[in-house]
């Protein structure tokens, strides 16, 4: 019982799932042992009873075969030779009231009878068979000692086996459950650590590559994603704060200056106009951020329709062509007719416009730009290629971040949100976007899932 004590002595030992599992298993094993015992008990009892009947029947047949003249003598001798059994004999000649032998015969009908007699002051249970034979009635009985002994053995064996198996089940259940629950405990400890703010906490896989390891991997990758998102958010928050501080600082300086030094109405007017521009820039940044957030948070593919991409590209290119021409640039298109995709027209317009504006803002005047696409069975590969200075491959991922401004582009106009918007729109449309070195220049390649009409 030291195991049970050990379990019970554990702090809250009885409240653990391990303990409950152990107890449950022990009960199941106990019930199994009981059922086994009942079945075995009946089967064995039945068998022993049959054996007993068989023995008695054979003995009775043998005695019945003794010639009538010697019958009384044989029975008297057998009874006196072994007065304690196991066989007991009785003979009652026809018409007589007295019974010979050591088996009392208080019945008159032939057949099976249960009899109990006193031998040396002990009560003995017998199974007796009475048969009619010529000249009287013969009875042979055998004691049930062997049957009782067997039952005792059976009972003892099953009680011992049952208790032992229950104990083993309790222990096995507790240990097995404990082994698994320890690992669940680890998961819950990690979760608690994360809830307490330690986002770097991870669940240690055991290396056995079992279900628990797979759970650990799944949870770890979820945590990884959460951590990324949280870091992204932190990054964005600090970027916003940083990015907005500049125009707000300008605004403050401008207003302070006019407050201290403003002399006439025109100087105030100029200051106010400048202030409105500064505020507009801040508001624009907010609007763009909100828009990106909205695009990212919208459920996938709501309000999507089939879009004639060729038509859309031509529309945007036509809109921007004059702007390109005014800057001495060539804007070329190489298109295929009637290529379709699923999407939100307004967003795709913005995506293309942003890409074209990027080339306008980040390449020197005169730089030619080409918009082209080719298709395969599943995708449209649309690329916008410029012959400008290009972007160092190390920064290819960086440019899609909010407020991403490459050092080379610090002096250029723009909020640093254009490509973040492009990334958000692409993500929403299942478009894979890559930056490639066009040697020289930059190629933005969009892999757009095709739709067929």
């Amino acid at each position, binding site marked *: 019982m030291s195991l049970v004590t050990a379990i019970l002595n554990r702090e809250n030992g009885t409240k653990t799932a391990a303990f409950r599992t152990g107890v449950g298993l022990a009960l199941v094993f106990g019930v199994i042992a009981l059922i086994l015992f009942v079945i075995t008990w009946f089967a064995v009892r039945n068998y022993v009873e049959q054996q007993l009947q068989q023995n008695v029947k054979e003995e009775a047949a043998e005695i019945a075969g003794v010639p009538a003249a010697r019958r009384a003598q044989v029975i008297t001798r057998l009874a006196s030779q072994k007065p304690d059994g196991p066989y007991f004999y009785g003979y009652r000649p026809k018409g007589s009231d007295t019974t010979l032998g050591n088996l009392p015969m208080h019945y008159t009908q032939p057949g099976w009878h249960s009899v109990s007699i006193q031998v040396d002051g002990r009560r003995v249970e017998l199974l007796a068979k009475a048969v009619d034979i010529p000249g009287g009635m013969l009875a042979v009985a055998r004691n049930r000692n062997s049957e009782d002994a067997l039952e005792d053995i059976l009972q003892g064996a099953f009680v011992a086996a049952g208790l032992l198996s229950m104990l083993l089940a309790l222990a096995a259940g507790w240990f097995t459950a404990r082994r698994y629950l320890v690992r669940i405990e680890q998961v819950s400890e990690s979760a608690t650590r994360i809830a307490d703010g330690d986002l770097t906490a991870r669940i240690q896989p055991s290396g056995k590559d079992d279900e628990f390891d797979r759970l650990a991997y799944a949870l770890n990758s979820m945590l990884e994603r959460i951590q990324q998102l949280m870091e992204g958010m932190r990054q964005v928050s600090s970027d916003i704060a940083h990015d907005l501080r500049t125009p707000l600082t300008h605004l403050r300086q401008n207003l302070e200056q006019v407050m201290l030094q403003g002399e006439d109405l025109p100087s105030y007017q100029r200051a106010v106009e400048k202030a409105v521009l500064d505020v507009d820039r801040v508001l*624009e940044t907010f*609007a763009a951020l909100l828009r990106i957030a909205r695009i990212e948070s919208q459920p996938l593919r709501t309000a999507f329709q089939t879009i004639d991409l060729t038509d859309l590209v031509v529309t945007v290119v036509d809109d921007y062509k004059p702007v390109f021409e005014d800057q001495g640039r060539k804007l070329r298109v190489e298109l295929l007719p009637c290529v379709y995709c699923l999407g939100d027209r307004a967003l795709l317009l913005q995506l293309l*416009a942003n890409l074209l504006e990027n080339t*306008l*803002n980040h390449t020197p005047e005169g730089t030619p730009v080409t918009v082209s696409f080719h298709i395969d069975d599943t995708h449209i590969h649309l690329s916008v290629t410029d012959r400008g200075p290009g972007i160092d491959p190390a920064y290819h991922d960086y440019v899609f971040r909010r407020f991403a401004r490459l050092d080379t582009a610090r002096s250029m106009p723009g909020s640093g949100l254009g490509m973040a918007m492009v990334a958000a729109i692409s993500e929403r449309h299942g478009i894979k976007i890559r930056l490639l070195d066009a040697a020289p220049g930059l190629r933005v390649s969009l892999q757009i899932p095709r739709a067929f009409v």
Partner: protein
Amino acid sequence: MRAQSCPNEHVAEPMRILLIEDDAETRRYIQRGLDELGYAVTCAANGAEGVMLASELEHDVIVLDRLLPRLDGLSVLKALRSAQINTPVLMLTALAEVEARVEGIEAGADDYLSKPFAFTELAARIGALARRPPLRDPTPTRLRLADLEMDLLRREVHRGGELIDLQPREFKLLEYFLRNAGRVVTRTMLLEQVWDYHFDPKTSVVETHISRLRGKIERNFQSQLLHTVRGAGYCLKEPDE
């Protein structure tokens, strides 16, 4: 804030505007500005009051905030339309997204403006709604201003009898100006109506097209038709105005 220099700001009978806006500061700001432009402004601070005022008095334009206490903007709009009050409605909202906009237009709004906005933008849009003729020929085939004439069926533009060759976008741009002749049209209005761009391009797409259009309709002619309204937008108007 300066009043715009486009004509028709001072008409004999002032335009009546119903402003339904819950934020007191915004309400004061809009009311003061519209007063200055010579509009007669009635204010309501919540939806229920707005519906009541709209059904009791006649207005030329209703400016309706989308998010209102008691009865929100969309419900107000639906209530008005189901009561056969067909006054043009300009919806104001902090929700700039295209879907929110579509929702508003579907509920019966005539225009949609997202906060924060420049007052000139609001004034231009109210102007465009207020002066919309009540029973305008829904499908005119010709638009005309001075000696400039647009044939919508043949997709041709003439000035002084001379054929002017326009690109499709320039044609659409001029058509919009002609339909809104005499009114101030903002850059955002052009982007939304002519380009169907619901974002703000960071480059001079609009300006470039305007300058090309100007070149085509004005270069060889004496009088200027398309005017830039400083701080507000553009206005196509008769030369003698």
